[in-house]
């Protein structure tokens, strides 16, 4: 894939507001009722076909979003929260809708984590560096 293709650009699909509402409802229902996910996906796929939205790309991004939520349920860190919030955009969930999902706030304090970041290049160190993004320069990556 040429790096000047869509992968290197911002999400280029134009998704109408009604579709964004639908996706939000899909995500909300799938979070609250995980057993509904497969059925919900079938409906979403059908809707995407009607609206001429690339379902494969959307499904890929939604899967990433749900995987992050699963990671976050085990370890509520600031950096994972940042990733979830970013990935929501790739699922056409804007900031206002994202807050309606009521994802529980992260637990770790910034100061504790960066104080223990000094030697994190050592394999055995389990403490992480997590500030505004956890990555030095994370804001340069959109985090």
């Amino acid at each position: 894939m040429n790096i000047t293709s869509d992968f290197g650009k911002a999400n280029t699909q134009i998704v109408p507001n009604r579709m964004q509402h639908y996706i939000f409802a899909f995500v909300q229902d799938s979070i609250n009722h995980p057993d509904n996910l497969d059925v919900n996906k079938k409906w979403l796929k059908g809707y995407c076909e009607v609206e001429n939205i690339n379902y494969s790309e959307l499904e890929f991004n939604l899967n990433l979003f749900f995987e992050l939520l699963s990671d976050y349920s085990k370890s509520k860190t600031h950096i994972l929260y940042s990733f979830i919030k970013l990935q929501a955009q790739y699922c056409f969930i804007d900031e206002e809708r994202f807050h309606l999902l009521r994802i529980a706030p992260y637990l770790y304090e910034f100061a504790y984590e960066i104080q223990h970041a000094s030697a994190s290049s050592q394999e055995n160190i389990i403490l992480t560096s997590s500030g505004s993004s956890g990555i030095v320069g994370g804001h340069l990556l959109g985090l």
Partner: protein
Amino acid sequence: MNNAEMLTLIVSVLMWQKHNGTIKLYTDKIGYAFIKEYDLVNLWDGIDTETLENNDYPIDSEVFWAAGKLIALEAHATPCVMLDTDLIVLRPISHLLNSNSIVALHAESLHPDTYLNPSFLKLQVGFKFPAYYNWEALPSNTAFLYIDDDSFKTFYLNESKRFMFHNEEKPEELVSQMVFAEQRLLSICASYKEIPITHLLTDPFTLSNDTVIHLWGFKNLLRQSKSVQTIYCRQLIKTVSNDLATNSFFQHYLEKQLPWE
């Protein structure tokens, strides 16, 4: 090494070449076999395996896990930059380097669990710290380190080697000994020689940083989560795509490695 760390390594090299000059890899035979396996041999402007393979310094590599960096630094002529493979410099910085003698990434606080009180450091029998050591000097993160003067480099590395050589007592953790030898000693030596250390960043997470991406502790999360790896890779490619759009090595790598292909 996962895709995200691999991509970071590649982007680190390519962005340095684009904006700041040539870059040489110092590695050992195992490291060389790894990069050969992943078809990365032509990434750098040169590769040196002899320096590390032929080195017989009496250094415990488990305790001093970054000693290889210092051995490589010793072998390389100044002025030079030592760059960690998880650090990306996004723009030209020669103007910063030309006007300073020592440039490191950022200062670090003297957190007592990381930068131990000297009385708690493990030492070889008979070793004493010189009286001139300034224990208040803030350590410097050396994921990026520029030194322009060979005599200072020699002085710093000699102090570091003196601490590391025959220092065989195992500490309870594998952080404090190495960060002292590499990062705290740099600042102590610079303080003694009255050479100021300039930092690329005022603090590691400053939003005024428009130059550096450094994985640092984030590597631990990357290693735990494939979804985080995927998203990080996407964001990194987006960030550098303008700079590397016509770089054939980068294009070739992406064609082979994109996660959903």
